[in-house]
């Protein structure tokens, strides 16, 4: 039950950030679906293989493919779907707690939380980079094949 509420909330988180970034209409709603499905994937992978960084990585991979797929159809930059879609995963909470431990002088908690936050950021970023590289290679091959068929 809790998971379902979270998935629905992720939808609204992504839409809200899309609106905050001044994205309009259909694009904002599509961005919301990106965030929602990505969070469902995060939870789904958690059932099979509960490792936070792996979950973040594959969720980021999904959001990237989703955005790369939609961007040319709606003639818009990939960021329009990617930034709001990634929002539910972004380690805002971790970053806040890290700094608040640092200010309170709790060194052990600070290191633990800080490493976790940085790890999250790295796995999301790595997911995005890997996914867009793969997407470009696949698209390149598809185009090459199409051209070969035509000639």
């Amino acid at each position, binding site marked *: 039950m*809790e998971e379902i*509420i*979270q998935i629905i*909330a*992720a939808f*609204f*988180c992504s*839409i*809200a*950030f*899309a*609106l*905050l*970034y*001044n*994205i*309009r209409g259909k694009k904002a709603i599509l961005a919301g679906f990106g965030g929602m499905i990505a969070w469902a994937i995060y939870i789904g992978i958690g059932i099979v293989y509960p490792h936070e960084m792996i979950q973040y990585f594959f969720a980021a991979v999904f959001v990237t493919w989703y955005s790369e797929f939609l961007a040319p159809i709606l*003639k*818009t*930059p990939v*960021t*329009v779907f990617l*930034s709001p879609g*990634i*929002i*539910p995963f*972004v*380690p*805002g*909470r971790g*970053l*806040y707690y*890290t*700094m*608040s431990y*640092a*200010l*309170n002088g709790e060194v052990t908690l600070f290191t633990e939380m800080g490493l976790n*936050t*940085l790890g999250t*950021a*790295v796995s*999301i*970023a*790595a997911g*995005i*980079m890997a996914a867009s590289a793969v997407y470009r290679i696949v698209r390149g091959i598809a185009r090459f094949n199409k051209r070969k068929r035509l000639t």
Partner: protein
Amino acid sequence: MRTKELISFVLDIGEQMLISGAEVNRVEDSITRMCSAYGAKRVNVLTITSSIVVTVKMLDGEVYTQTRRIRSYVTDLNKLDRLNNLSRFIVNHKPDLEEIEHEIEQIDLIGVYSTKKQYFIYALVASSFTVFFGGNVGDTIVSALVAMLLKWMISFIKKVDKNTVITNVFCSFVVGLVTIVTVNFGLGTNVDHIIIGNIMLLIPGLALTNAVKDIISGDTISGLLRLNEAFVIAVSIASGFGLATLLMGGLM
């Protein structure tokens, strides 16, 4: 061809793209393409988060350099979308300078959502994150109201003082204070859940992720700058909330 003015317009587009939230890569790429379309023999662009430098060598051997300093960002992906289309249009059709100028003015005219909608959006962000992190109904309502207060404070402070650190310390201090007081009055139950929803509006979580992305893709300087910025803002937010809990803890 009035090359100087052309480069100035190209830089205007690049500058606006960077301010609206484009990656460093994309800005450099767009500037290079636009200059090459107008017959530049060689284009050297350096973009970091706070400045753009471009040196263009034209076919006749003339060399031009122009710089832009960027001081603040306002993420506006709708504008970025338009600018991106404009830069593609320029590369494909090579319009004359008057047309480019006209298009840039048109893009400047599209504004953001109206103030009323902005308040609603802030409330939506904060309340959906409060639910996301496990808040109950009371928490969500308080969180939405506090977010509206936050929006009002941000627009008020932006008129007086533009320093991000001061803005963040002050805003998070007031948000923390108001949240603790309302929870003590019995509206909402969990201070943490309410605060985390509002923190998401202030904290540069996306900037942190983008910084790491920049570093991985090879733009180390930009990435490190952004990383530092994110940490400084996070420290200022944490200290604002820290002050609020310290003060209220002493009173209660």
